[in-house]
């Protein structure tokens, strides 16, 4: 996996160079955005609702025992926006979108479609990688905003209806408002944008380097998802350290 890091950075560099062409490829960016939204929005909502819920469920009773229920909103709110929403949405997108990018580019590589593009003097990075990378980098932060809001809601529902916690909506959201600054949300969005770039690059790179026929496509997909998730978790730690340092 790590011998590819150089190639992946190279791909990042070349895509960055192609960025001025984004406007020309806007149709494809929209298509990709639509596809990403279509494939992941519902799942993201469901996932976030339950993550928020389980957070409240795990922390609530312990806090309630010690009479600290006024912190539940804050704990759920902070963990959601600083950590769980960006990380979980990144995993979801790696699984749903990264895999399909790797499969699509992989099959294009195997069936000589990439060669055909190049033979027509069409740069596959501009034509294929750029719109995907731009779309995923726009979509993931938006998805994370959704996820944060719905996660908060999930936490609220559990905090109110679970008999061991049983606080009011008002109490929950007051605690949440007191405990969270805009900067916390921005932190999460910054991380998610970085994760999006990782997913897009790893998946496109893996797809474009597919060898060995249809079986190779399957291998590329698995590798793209696994490598994305590993890199996301490693990057998550270091970004968190960095952001703490900046605070």
């Amino acid at each position, binding site marked *: 996996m790590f011998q590819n890091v150089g190639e992946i950075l190279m791909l990042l560099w070349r895509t960055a160079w192609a960025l001025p062409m984004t406007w020309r490829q806007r149709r494809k960016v929209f298509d990709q955005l639509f596809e990403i939204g279509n494939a992941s929005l519902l799942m993201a909502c469901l996932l976030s609702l339950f993550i928020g819920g389980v957070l409240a469920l795990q922390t609530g009773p312990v806090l309630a025992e010690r009479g600290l229920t006024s912190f539940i909103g804050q704990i759920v709110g902070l963990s959601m926006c600083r950590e769980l929403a960006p990380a979980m949405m990144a995993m979801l997108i790696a699984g749903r979108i990264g895999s399909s990018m790797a499969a*699509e580019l992989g*099959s*294009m590589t195997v*069936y*000589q*479609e990439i*060669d*055909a*593009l*190049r*033979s*027509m*003097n*069409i740069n596959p990075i501009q*034509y294929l990688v750029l719109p995907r990378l731009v779309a995923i980098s726009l979509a993931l932060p938006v998805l994370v905003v959704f996820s944060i809001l719905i996660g908060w809601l999930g936490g609220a529902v559990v905090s109110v209806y679970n008999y061991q916690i049983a606080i009011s909506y008002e109490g929950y959201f007051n605690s949440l408002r007191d405990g969270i600054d805009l900067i916390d949300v921005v932190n999460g969005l910054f991380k998610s944008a970085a994760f999006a770039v990782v997913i897009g690059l790893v998946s496109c790179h893996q797809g474009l380097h597919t060898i060995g026929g249809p079986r190779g496509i399957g291998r590329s997909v698995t590798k793209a998802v696994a490598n994305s998730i590993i890199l996301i978790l490693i990057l998550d730690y270091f970004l968190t350290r960095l952001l703490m340092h900046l605070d």
Partner: protein
Amino acid sequence: MNATAQQGVNLRARDVCKSYDGQRVLNGIDFHVERGEVFVLMGPSGSGKTVLLKHLIGLEVPDRGEILIEGQPIHSPGVVDRYRLAMVFQSGALLNSLSVADNVGLYLSEHRLHPPETIARIVTEKLALVGLKGIENKLPSELSGGMKKRVSIARALVIEPQLILYDEPTSELDPLIAVTIGAEILRLNKRIHVTSIVVTHDRELAFGIADRIALMNEGELIALGPPDQVKANPHPLVQRFLQADFRFNPESITP
């Protein structure tokens, strides 16, 4: 259209070598193709024909040796654009996410060479050239293998190339269409003098259209010359390859 577009280009491969993972696929390939010539390349499966074509159009860089178009190295700036090289891929290589019309017009639309209406007209015209009508809005997955092949020939023609490389243009085609495609290759060659390099396993096609034939085996050219000369080549591999047929001697097949 500029003047040179009516001429075709000459091509020279000089001592081309290529290995993948230490395995030699091309081993000192050396030949030239004249302007407007139909050059047929034959050889057993896996002998490196497709790899050679990819080198000829500049998709791969040789480990050693070079490809010259009109005397200029293929990778020097502007050569591919100026001389317009096109390749018809073995599998057709149509973009599965685009309609037939978008596939055929891709070169023009992506390089913004014409307004959309003109592109649509050119696309219909080129599709008609390969005998296809009214399939502009279909997706490649809705076409038969032979139709895909012909669409991909149309896509190559849109470039107005001076050199076309055909990778097995008649595989997957029924004999009637195969003959049509063969005739089409010749007609294009005669009409616009495009230089054509055709890879094929189809011996009738090869001997029907070739000005010269080259036979390739394990990354080397083992015979090269006009059809009659190649037919008379005494090299045992050449004779085996050219004479292999289905008329088995029943006694030689043990159950």
